[in-house]
Protein backbone atom coordinates (compact mmCIF):
# COMPACT_ATOMS: atom_id res chain seq x y z
CA UNK A 1 0.00 0.00 0.00
CA UNK A 2 1.26 3.46 -0.88
CA UNK A 3 2.17 5.66 2.05
CA UNK A 4 0.31 8.98 1.73
CA UNK A 5 2.82 10.83 3.92
CA UNK A 6 5.61 9.70 1.57
CA UNK A 7 3.56 10.60 -1.53
CA UNK A 8 3.19 14.18 -0.28
CA UNK A 9 6.96 14.55 0.11
CA UNK A 10 8.20 12.77 -3.02
CA UNK A 11 9.41 14.88 -5.96
CA UNK A 12 9.87 13.24 -9.35
CA UNK A 13 12.73 14.80 -11.34
CA UNK A 14 12.41 14.38 -15.10
CA UNK A 15 15.41 15.91 -16.82
CA UNK A 16 18.34 15.05 -19.13
CA UNK A 17 20.97 12.81 -17.54
CA UNK A 18 23.94 13.76 -19.76
CA UNK A 19 27.18 15.30 -18.50
CA UNK A 20 26.35 18.79 -19.84
CA UNK A 21 23.17 18.90 -17.78
CA UNK A 22 24.73 17.28 -14.67
CA UNK A 23 25.39 20.55 -12.74
CA UNK A 24 21.72 21.55 -13.11
CA UNK A 25 20.55 18.05 -12.18
CA UNK A 26 22.72 18.09 -9.03
CA UNK A 27 21.43 21.57 -8.13
CA UNK A 28 17.83 20.32 -8.50
CA UNK A 29 18.46 17.24 -6.32
CA UNK A 30 20.13 19.45 -3.71
CA UNK A 31 17.28 22.02 -3.69
CA UNK A 32 14.65 19.29 -3.29
CA UNK A 33 16.64 17.65 -0.47
CA UNK A 34 17.41 20.81 1.52
CA UNK A 35 13.73 21.80 1.26
CA UNK A 36 12.89 18.60 3.16
CA UNK A 37 11.47 16.58 0.25
CA UNK A 38 12.64 13.29 -1.24
CA UNK A 39 14.13 13.48 -4.75
CA UNK A 40 13.03 10.58 -6.98
CA UNK A 41 13.98 9.84 -10.59
CA UNK A 42 14.06 7.05 -13.14
CA UNK A 43 17.75 6.43 -12.36
CA UNK A 44 17.05 5.19 -8.83
CA UNK A 45 16.02 1.65 -9.82
CA UNK A 46 18.84 -0.17 -11.57
CA UNK A 47 16.78 -3.31 -12.00
CA UNK A 48 17.38 -4.42 -15.59
CA UNK A 49 14.44 -6.82 -15.34
CA UNK A 50 11.97 -3.96 -15.01
CA UNK A 51 10.78 -2.19 -18.14
CA UNK A 52 11.87 1.43 -18.09
CA UNK A 53 8.35 2.72 -18.71
CA UNK A 54 6.94 0.52 -15.93
CA UNK A 55 9.62 1.86 -13.59
CA UNK A 56 8.83 5.47 -14.51
CA UNK A 57 5.08 4.94 -14.07
CA UNK A 58 5.60 3.39 -10.63
CA UNK A 59 7.78 6.29 -9.47
CA UNK A 60 5.36 8.84 -10.97
CA UNK A 61 2.48 7.30 -9.04
CA UNK A 62 4.49 7.67 -5.80
CA UNK A 63 5.21 11.39 -6.25
CA UNK A 64 2.89 14.31 -5.56
CA UNK A 65 5.36 16.74 -7.14
CA UNK A 66 6.94 16.56 -10.59
CA UNK A 67 9.74 18.71 -12.01
CA UNK A 68 9.97 18.39 -15.79
CA UNK A 69 12.86 20.08 -17.57
CA UNK A 70 12.31 20.48 -21.32
CA UNK A 71 15.52 22.38 -22.03
CA UNK A 72 17.00 19.53 -24.07
CA UNK A 73 14.15 19.48 -26.61
CA UNK A 74 16.37 20.40 -29.54
CA UNK A 75 18.07 18.51 -32.40
CA UNK A 76 20.78 16.29 -30.92
CA UNK A 77 23.63 14.16 -32.28
CA UNK A 78 21.38 12.40 -34.79
CA UNK A 79 19.49 15.52 -35.81
CA UNK A 80 16.56 14.51 -33.60
CA UNK A 81 15.48 15.93 -30.24
CA UNK A 82 15.15 13.89 -27.03
CA UNK A 83 11.45 13.22 -26.57
CA UNK A 84 11.71 11.42 -23.22
CA UNK A 85 11.21 14.54 -21.14
CA UNK A 86 8.04 15.84 -22.91
CA UNK A 87 6.74 12.25 -22.97
CA UNK A 88 7.16 11.81 -19.19
CA UNK A 89 5.58 15.23 -18.64
CA UNK A 90 2.58 13.98 -20.67
CA UNK A 91 2.40 10.84 -18.53
CA UNK A 92 2.42 12.92 -15.34
CA UNK A 93 -0.29 15.28 -16.67
CA UNK A 94 -2.44 12.30 -17.71
CA UNK A 95 -1.89 10.65 -14.32
CA UNK A 96 -3.20 13.80 -12.63
CA UNK A 97 -6.16 14.12 -15.00
CA UNK A 98 -7.38 10.53 -15.23
CA UNK A 99 -6.50 9.05 -11.82
CA UNK A 100 -8.49 9.40 -8.67
CA UNK A 101 -7.75 10.20 -5.04
CA UNK A 102 -4.38 11.61 -4.09
CA UNK A 103 -3.11 11.50 -7.71
CA UNK A 104 -5.39 14.45 -8.43
CA UNK A 105 -3.33 16.48 -5.95
CA UNK A 106 -0.31 16.24 -8.23
CA UNK A 107 1.63 19.46 -8.74
CA UNK A 108 3.89 19.94 -11.77
CA UNK A 109 6.66 22.41 -12.51
CA UNK A 110 7.88 22.74 -16.10
CA UNK A 111 11.35 24.17 -16.59
CA UNK A 112 12.96 25.36 -19.78
CA UNK A 113 16.13 27.30 -20.50
CA UNK A 114 14.32 30.40 -21.76
CA UNK A 115 10.91 31.94 -21.38
CA UNK A 116 8.27 31.08 -24.01
CA UNK A 117 10.64 28.75 -25.94
CA UNK A 118 8.19 25.89 -25.21
CA UNK A 119 5.62 27.66 -27.40
CA UNK A 120 7.67 26.64 -30.45
CA UNK A 121 7.56 22.90 -29.74
CA UNK A 122 4.95 22.17 -27.03
CA UNK A 123 2.38 24.94 -27.07
CA UNK A 124 -0.27 22.60 -25.60
CA UNK A 125 1.27 23.03 -22.13
CA UNK A 126 0.42 26.74 -22.04
CA UNK A 127 -1.31 27.55 -18.76
CA UNK A 128 0.84 25.14 -16.71
CA UNK A 129 3.45 26.38 -14.22
CA UNK A 130 6.37 27.04 -16.61
CA UNK A 131 9.55 28.76 -15.45
CA UNK A 132 12.92 29.43 -17.13
CA UNK A 133 16.32 28.77 -15.54
CA UNK A 134 18.65 30.16 -18.23
CA UNK A 135 20.95 27.14 -17.59
CA UNK A 136 21.91 28.72 -14.24
CA UNK A 137 22.26 26.51 -11.13
CA UNK A 138 21.29 29.39 -8.88
CA UNK A 139 18.16 30.04 -10.94
CA UNK A 140 17.21 26.33 -10.89
CA UNK A 141 17.51 26.27 -7.09
CA UNK A 142 15.43 29.44 -6.71
CA UNK A 143 12.75 28.19 -9.17
CA UNK A 144 12.44 24.81 -7.42
CA UNK A 145 12.42 26.39 -3.95
CA UNK A 146 9.81 29.04 -4.77
CA UNK A 147 7.58 26.49 -6.47
CA UNK A 148 7.80 24.02 -3.56
CA UNK A 149 6.97 26.78 -1.08
CA UNK A 150 3.92 27.92 -3.04
CA UNK A 151 2.60 24.41 -3.80
CA UNK A 152 3.25 22.80 -0.42
CA UNK A 153 2.39 25.85 1.70
CA UNK A 154 5.33 24.96 3.96
CA UNK A 155 6.67 28.22 5.32
CA UNK A 156 9.74 26.71 7.01
CA UNK A 157 11.54 25.98 3.71
CA UNK A 158 14.73 28.10 3.67
CA UNK A 159 15.28 30.95 1.18
CA UNK A 160 16.76 30.48 -2.29
CA UNK A 161 19.98 32.41 -1.62
CA UNK A 162 20.64 30.42 1.56
CA UNK A 163 20.03 27.18 -0.36
CA UNK A 164 22.43 28.27 -3.11
CA UNK A 165 25.19 29.11 -0.59
CA UNK A 166 24.74 25.68 1.02
CA UNK A 167 24.86 24.08 -2.42
CA UNK A 168 28.16 25.85 -3.20
CA UNK A 169 29.62 24.60 0.12
CA UNK A 170 28.53 21.08 -0.77
CA UNK A 171 30.06 21.38 -4.25
CA UNK A 172 33.36 22.59 -2.75
CA UNK A 173 33.53 19.55 -0.48
CA UNK A 174 32.28 16.96 -2.98
CA UNK A 175 35.61 16.28 -4.78
CA UNK A 176 37.43 15.65 -1.45
CA UNK A 177 34.54 13.51 -0.30
CA UNK A 178 34.69 11.42 -3.46
CA UNK A 179 38.48 11.04 -3.12
CA UNK A 180 37.99 9.64 0.39
CA UNK A 181 35.34 7.23 -0.89
CA UNK A 182 37.45 6.31 -3.94
CA UNK A 183 34.74 7.50 -6.31
CA UNK A 184 34.83 9.91 -9.24
CA UNK A 185 32.46 12.89 -8.81
CA UNK A 186 31.42 12.57 -12.48
CA UNK A 187 30.48 8.93 -11.99
CA UNK A 188 28.32 9.29 -8.86
CA UNK A 189 25.04 7.47 -9.44
CA UNK A 190 21.76 9.19 -8.55
CA UNK A 191 21.25 7.12 -5.39
CA UNK A 192 24.82 7.78 -4.26
CA UNK A 193 24.52 11.51 -4.97
CA UNK A 194 21.20 11.64 -3.16
CA UNK A 195 22.59 9.66 -0.19
CA UNK A 196 25.68 11.89 -0.06
CA UNK A 197 23.57 15.07 -0.07
CA UNK A 198 21.33 13.63 2.67
CA UNK A 199 24.30 12.71 4.89
CA UNK A 200 26.06 16.04 4.20
CA UNK A 201 22.94 18.03 5.15
CA UNK A 202 22.44 15.92 8.24
CA UNK A 203 26.04 16.32 9.38
CA UNK A 204 26.10 20.03 8.66
CA UNK A 205 22.96 20.63 10.69
CA UNK A 206 24.45 19.09 13.85
Amino acid at each position, binding site marked *: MRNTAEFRLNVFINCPFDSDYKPLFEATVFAVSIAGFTPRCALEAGDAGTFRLEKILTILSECRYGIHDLSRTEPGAFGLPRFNMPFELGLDLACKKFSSGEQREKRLLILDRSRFRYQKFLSDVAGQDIRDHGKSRRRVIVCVRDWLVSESGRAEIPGGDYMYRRYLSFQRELPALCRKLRLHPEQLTFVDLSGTIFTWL*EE*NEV
Partner: protein
Amino acid sequence: MTKTLHVEPHADGWAIRREGSKRAASIYKSKQDAIDEANKLSFDVVIHGKTGQPFRRSPVPPSIDPKKLRQAVREVRAASLKLRVRASTRNQASARGK
Protein backbone atom coordinates in the same frame (compact mmCIF):
# COMPACT_ATOMS: atom_id res chain seq x y z
CA MET B 1 7.55 -2.96 7.24
CA THR B 2 9.96 -0.68 9.09
CA LYS B 3 8.47 2.12 11.12
CA THR B 4 9.44 5.69 10.24
CA LEU B 5 11.32 7.37 13.06
CA HIS B 6 11.79 11.10 13.46
CA VAL B 7 14.82 12.66 15.13
CA GLU B 8 13.77 16.14 16.20
CA PRO B 9 14.55 18.94 18.66
CA HIS B 10 13.14 18.48 22.18
CA ALA B 11 13.13 20.71 25.27
CA ASP B 12 15.67 18.32 26.89
CA GLY B 13 17.85 17.72 23.82
CA TRP B 14 16.99 15.54 20.83
CA ALA B 15 14.13 13.06 20.67
CA ILE B 16 13.34 9.95 18.65
CA ARG B 17 9.63 9.87 17.88
CA ARG B 18 7.69 7.18 16.01
CA GLU B 19 5.67 8.52 13.06
CA GLY B 20 2.03 8.93 14.07
CA SER B 21 2.89 9.27 17.75
CA LYS B 22 2.91 12.62 19.55
CA ARG B 23 5.23 11.57 22.38
CA ALA B 24 8.99 11.10 22.21
CA ALA B 25 10.07 7.46 22.44
CA SER B 26 13.48 8.40 23.82
CA ILE B 27 15.51 11.56 24.46
CA TYR B 28 19.26 12.14 23.94
CA LYS B 29 21.56 14.97 24.89
CA SER B 30 23.16 15.21 21.44
CA LYS B 31 21.56 15.04 18.03
CA GLN B 32 24.27 12.66 16.86
CA ASP B 33 23.46 10.13 19.59
CA ALA B 34 19.79 10.29 18.61
CA ILE B 35 20.65 9.83 14.89
CA ASP B 36 22.96 6.88 15.60
CA GLU B 37 20.32 5.17 17.74
CA ALA B 38 17.51 5.81 15.24
CA ASN B 39 19.64 4.43 12.39
CA LYS B 40 20.15 1.25 14.42
CA LEU B 41 16.39 0.88 14.91
CA SER B 42 15.09 1.66 11.42
CA PHE B 43 16.23 2.41 7.88
CA ASP B 44 13.47 4.96 7.50
CA VAL B 45 14.69 7.86 9.59
CA VAL B 46 13.57 11.45 9.08
CA ILE B 47 16.04 13.86 10.62
CA HIS B 48 14.91 17.36 11.47
CA GLY B 49 17.12 20.41 11.77
CA LYS B 50 17.39 22.69 14.76
CA THR B 51 14.36 24.59 13.54
CA GLY B 52 12.38 21.43 12.92
CA GLN B 53 13.27 21.32 9.19
CA PRO B 54 13.35 17.66 8.10
CA PHE B 55 15.75 16.05 5.63
CA ARG B 56 14.45 12.94 3.89
CA ARG B 57 16.42 9.88 2.81
CA SER B 58 15.80 8.39 -0.63
CA PRO B 59 13.85 5.09 -0.47
CA VAL B 60 16.67 3.42 -2.41
CA PRO B 61 19.77 3.05 -0.20
CA PRO B 62 23.08 4.25 -1.70
CA SER B 63 25.72 1.73 -2.75
CA ILE B 64 28.23 3.50 -0.49
CA ASP B 65 28.54 2.07 3.03
CA PRO B 66 26.57 4.59 5.18
CA LYS B 67 29.16 4.48 7.98
CA LYS B 68 32.05 5.19 5.58
CA LEU B 69 30.03 7.95 3.92
CA ARG B 70 29.26 9.63 7.26
CA GLN B 71 32.89 9.32 8.36
CA ALA B 72 34.11 10.84 5.06
CA VAL B 73 31.63 13.74 5.35
CA ARG B 74 32.84 14.45 8.91
CA GLU B 75 36.53 14.31 7.95
CA VAL B 76 36.12 16.56 4.91
CA ARG B 77 34.03 18.99 6.96
CA ALA B 78 36.69 19.13 9.70
CA ALA B 79 39.47 19.67 7.12
CA SER B 80 37.53 22.44 5.40
CA LEU B 81 36.80 24.18 8.73
CA LYS B 82 40.51 23.99 9.61
CA LEU B 83 41.40 25.59 6.25
CA ARG B 84 38.85 28.33 6.81
CA VAL B 85 40.21 29.10 10.32
CA ARG B 86 43.77 29.18 8.96
CA ALA B 87 42.76 31.55 6.13
CA SER B 88 40.92 33.85 8.53
CA THR B 89 43.93 33.91 10.95
CA ARG B 90 46.20 34.75 8.00
CA ASN B 91 43.86 37.57 6.91
CA GLN B 92 43.75 38.99 10.44
CA ALA B 93 47.55 38.84 10.68
CA SER B 94 48.01 40.61 7.35
CA ALA B 95 45.42 43.24 8.36
CA ARG B 96 47.41 43.85 11.58
CA GLY B 97 50.63 44.09 9.53
CA LYS B 98 49.13 46.93 7.48
